[in-house]
């Protein structure tokens, strides 16, 4: 898969995002890493230009409830509802449901094994091959939990 790993918002720690980026590369994926402090519109631009099939968002700052909806809405508005979005970082339990409601297909918290994320991506590929919806603008329902 061609995956953009992005750091939206102002938090300055990207150790987690870098570990994920590397693990996905080692799992055979092409990973475009955006670097720190990207705005939602920059991230949408990068996903467009790179023709990515998936977008992983890492947030630690607590601004996920603002940034994730902005990015998901932006993708849908730009006609990129087929892009699969997953999230990671610090997302409190009470917010998980509303993040899923945005069309996010998986949330990986601290302590997740990188192998689990690769399993998730494999499942996504299979679903996509069977034309089952995985995109941020497609029918919700399936999520990785």
């Amino acid at each position, binding site marked *: 898969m061609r995956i953009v790993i992005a750091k939206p918002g102002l938090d300055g720690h990207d150790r987690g995002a870098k570990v994920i*980026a*590397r693990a*996905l*590369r*080692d*799992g*055979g*994926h*092409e*990973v*475009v*890493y*955006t*670097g*720190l402090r*990207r705005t939602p*519109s*920059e991230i949408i*631009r*990068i996903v*467009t*230009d*790179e*023709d990515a099939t998936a977008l992983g968002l890492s947030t630690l700052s607590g601004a996920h409830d603002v940034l994730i909806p902005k990015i998901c809405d932006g993708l849908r508005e*730009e*006609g*990129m509802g087929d892009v699969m979005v997953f999230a990671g970082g610090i997302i409190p339990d009470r917010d998980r449901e509303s993040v899923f409601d945005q069309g996010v297909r998986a949330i990986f918290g601290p302590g997740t094994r990188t192998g689990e994320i690769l399993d998730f991506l494999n499942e996504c590929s299979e679903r996509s091959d069977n034309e089952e919806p995985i995109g941020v603008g497609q029918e919700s329902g399936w999520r990785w939990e």
Partner: protein
Amino acid sequence: MELLKSAKSGDRRSLARLLTLVEEGETLELPEVAPWTLGVTGPPGVGKSTLIGRMVSHWKDSGERVAVLAVDPSSPRSGGALLADRMRMESTDSGDSVYFRSLATRGHPGGVSYLLSPMIDLLSFCGWSRIVIETVGSGQAETRIVAFADRVLMVDGPDRGDIIQAEKAGIIELADIIAVNKSDKPGASRAADSIRASLELSGDRGSPEVHLVSAQNSVGIETLVSAIEECSSPDWRNRLRITERLLSKWDSRLILSDGLDGALDELETGSITLDQALDRLQGTSG
């Protein structure tokens, strides 16, 4: 083709899709175009991406539409790739006049070189007036990629002397212009001097200009860009580049040929010689 029409009218999503199709091997019928291309290479860590970011801003301000193709190696073990050039080129992520695309060498046998020409043509057809190809100069195959551009910039850092190593490999001869980056660091002007001195030794054959720049502090960028705009490659350098293009085409043909595995098996057991293997593969390659 609908996609081509909307890409030409400025739809980025269509352009991105088309580039993917080209990357996957599809051929597009395009009218003849005359792309403006610059290849940028140099050792890892000298600041190529930052420097390109600065040049992009400069071109953007003077009304050009700039596309960057950044080529990074795929891991031979997993086939995956980590493409992080764009994190150092934030100027490329806003505004309609810049397009940035990361490219992994993938399982593309013989490298991505042969995909670059159609990608460049497509970008030029869609109205991108400056096309920059960036590649890590970490080996002959990577460096060869810049031979697909009509002008070549090599970037070095202070005190590395890597570019002198590159000269030994004959790669430096592909460059029209050399930039020594990080001019604020001690040793930068000495590095530039030693590059100049070593170029002089190679005789008066239109040696490349050597520029001192600091991408970080935006020093010397304007002069560098105008030097790039004005440079003209002598015939012998063009010929060298054409040679490199031919060699990469040759490589990819060889690696794509059907009989490769069989020939390798026989070479392993020693039942044929290298020359015999080549003769046979030449017969089976497209």
